């Protein structure tokens, strides 16, 4: 088959915050740059981010990058790499100023500076008291960010391939990344993008869970492609859950609802958080509330016919307060839970929100993996940034507003690294023979499968398996069963069948391809979670409880290390956490408590 080859200096897969930020660096350096996206760039999931982006500008309160660094290390439960964290926190101010120059309409103080608001976990003076560090553009931060960067890219002549799906990474015989294969949805045509640098910026994979705040687009394509190309995935056991997603829909109900007096109740109508967190009650941190909810459900005090959710109650608030202070919440409840929260409580469950792990990178955005001698080596030609990457700055738990910062800082550093590497090389390396064969074989299998499994069934199976076995609170026996079950589900995914065989706009085919990526992420997450026998950050096991020897269940002697999962043989390896920052002293291990 004759597969068209498009030649670029650099190809970026993903047009969310991280992809657009990288593209600016490449195009403005004069490189011929392609950006591929499953959707129009300004429809990427970054739009959903409202809370803002963290930077120690010090406009509203005195602040310092070192304090931000401390908060991030602590938030990560010491699993974050301290060199990358120092890098990110030091670069934050510049990242925000760059955005401002691109035309981002940040909220302002009266004297014209960028206005900053507080956000959980961000403190001044090494954990002393909350600091206002988040920069936002009303409740449209992500949206405004994408628009500003998209415009800048248009000006810089970045070439966009919209409604294209990247399928697989192309590596040559020496393992160097030399391009990707991609499918144009409108025509069904497979094309090879031959390039000197490939940057993955494909976002999160939250759709592996049944209950997820993530939009449907978050199917972990970048992770699937990396895993199939032999690259390990790092720290995939760490998923952040948000306590209040609407049961059955996943749509996020903001923390503000509890801030205004909303309370959680079980089937006995009890305000159960009083038992778990006598002081903070319903306002305790996300992980504490999520685990309490799960315990209530597990012990049979959940609500509804299957007793599998709890209730978020605001019926005691004045309707006027609800309308004024919590606009949008009433409509979300009516549209997605079918209840008017003025009259009835909202069914909620802890809901998957953010993926801390991903494709392993260093702080310069290079993808790194152990070489034959076990040394962490750069994979030439390959870079990653944003939620699909693991630098690792979020470690075992991400702080709110640090993710948008991660996109900007590592989007830029990945772009800069790619520019330097491309300029140092004289020409494109050759494509391997039949570079598209692997992708074509996958497509062919999907097109010709008979008596197979529908995409709908396979996705349900993945999501249910993850939700039931590797949710917010984890149990040794369930994790073990989960591993067996997800490998069974994988067999179903190998037999995906689609009824529609057309070429043009065959969305069934695209969804089958997405499912093949979801299963890689699901396996990585389940197997990594089963293997890590301690509790840390978002990974909390029933059999690793809080004891004097292991506060919070964390066991630094054995488990202060990053997980690496390999697709081949489902092998697990570990690598050390980088405890040495770039210029300052190590932030020493301590028990994480707020």
């Amino acid at each position, binding site marked *: 088959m004759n597969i068209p080859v498009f030649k670029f200096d650099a190809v970026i897969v993903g047009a969310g915050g991280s992809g657009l930020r990288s593209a600016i660096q490449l195009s403005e350096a004069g490189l011929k740059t392609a950006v591929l996206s499953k*959707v129009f760039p300004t429809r990427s999931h970054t739009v959903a981010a409202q809370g803002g982006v963290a930077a120690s500008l010090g406009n509203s309160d005195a602040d310092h990058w070192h304090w931000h660094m401390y908060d991030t290390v602590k938030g990560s439960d010491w699993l974050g790499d301290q060199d990358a964290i120092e890098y990110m926190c030091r670069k934050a101010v510049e990242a925000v100023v760059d955005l401002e120059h691109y035309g981002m309409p940040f909220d302002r103080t009266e004297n014209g500076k960028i206005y900053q608001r507080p956000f959980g976990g961000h403190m001044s003076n090494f954990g002393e008291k909350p600091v206002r560090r988040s920069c936002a553009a009303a409740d*449209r931060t992500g949206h405004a960010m994408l628009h500003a960067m998209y415009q800048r890219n248009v000006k810089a002549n970045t070439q966009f391939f919209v409604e294209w799906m990247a399928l697989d990474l192309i590596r040559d015989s020496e393992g160097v990344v030399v391009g990707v294969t991609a499918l144009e949805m409108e025509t069904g045509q497979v094309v090879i993008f031959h390039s000197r640098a490939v940057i993955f910026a494909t976002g999160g994979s939250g759709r592996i869970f049944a209950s997820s705040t993530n939009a*449907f687009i978050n199917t972990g394509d970048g992770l699937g492609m990396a895993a199939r190309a032999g690259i390990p995935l790092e720290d995939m056991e760490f998923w952040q859950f948000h306590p209040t997603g609407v049961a*059955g*829909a996943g749509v996020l109900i903001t923390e503000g609802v509890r801030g205004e007096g909303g309370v959680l109740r079980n089937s006995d109508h009890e305000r159960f958080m009083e038992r778990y967190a006598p002081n903070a009650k319903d306002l305790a941190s996300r992980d504490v509330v999520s685990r309490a909810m799960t315990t209530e459900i597990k012990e049979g005090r959940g609500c509804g016919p299957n007793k599998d959710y709890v209730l978020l109650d605001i019926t005691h608030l004045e309707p006027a307060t609800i309308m004024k202070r919590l606009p949008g919440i009433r409509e*979300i*409840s009516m*549209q997605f839970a*079918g209840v008017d929260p003025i009259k009835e409580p909202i069914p909620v469950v802890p809901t998957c929100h953010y993926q801390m792990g991903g494709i392993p990178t260093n702080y310069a955005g290079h993808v790194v993996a152990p070489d034959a001698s076990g040394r962490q080596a750069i994979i030439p030609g390959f870079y990653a940034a944003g939620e699909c990457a693991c630098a690792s700055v979020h470690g075992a738990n991400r702080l709110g507003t640090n993710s948008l910062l991660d996109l900007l800082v590592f989007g830029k550093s990945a772009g800069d690294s790619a520019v330097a590497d491309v300029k140092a090389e004289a020409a494109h390396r050759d494509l391997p023979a039949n570079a598209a064969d692997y992708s074509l074989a996958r497509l062919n299998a999907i097109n010709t499968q008979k008596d197979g499994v529908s995409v709908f069934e396979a996705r*349900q199976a993945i999501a249910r398996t993850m939700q039931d076995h590797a949710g917010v609170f984890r149990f040794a026996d369930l994790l073990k069963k989960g591993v067996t079950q997800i490998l069974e589900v994988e067999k179903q995914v190998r037999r995906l069948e689609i009824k529609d065989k057309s070429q043009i706009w065959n969305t069934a085919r695209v969804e089958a391809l997405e499912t093949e990526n979801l299963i890689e992420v699901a396996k990585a997450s389940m197997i990594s979670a089963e293997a890590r026998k301690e509790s840390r950050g978002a990974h909390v096991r029933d059999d690793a409880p809080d004891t004097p020897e292991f506060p919070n269940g964390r066991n630094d002697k054995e488990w202060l290390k990053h997980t690496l999962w390999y697709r081949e043989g489902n092998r697990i390896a570990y690598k050390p956490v980088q405890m040495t920052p770039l210029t300052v002293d190590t932030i020493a291990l301590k028990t994480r408590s707020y």
Partner: protein
Amino acid sequence: MRNGAALTEGAVISRLRWRCTRRAMLEMDLLLGRFLEEEFPALSLEEQKIFMELADREDAQLWPWVSGKEECADIRLFPVIQRLRRYGEKRGARADPASVSPSPARQP
């Protein structure tokens, strides 16, 4: 390329399905995706065209309209937006918190 001329009927719907279920916000994936399955076929041709036009708008604009946070001033679009909003509330009333929907329901 986005306005490809030779799109068949099936392809038009497939493309629309993609644009309704791969949006920036989960709220809109759910709302537009379900509306497309359940109500779109019964719309008049004129309304269908307007729905397609709306599906090409951005969520930051569309969500405030269908959630009633903002009023859409365009009287041409308004009836379909009202319909979406009413559909959402009616669909919500049937919401089953016990049934999780990990992906857009049925495949073509």
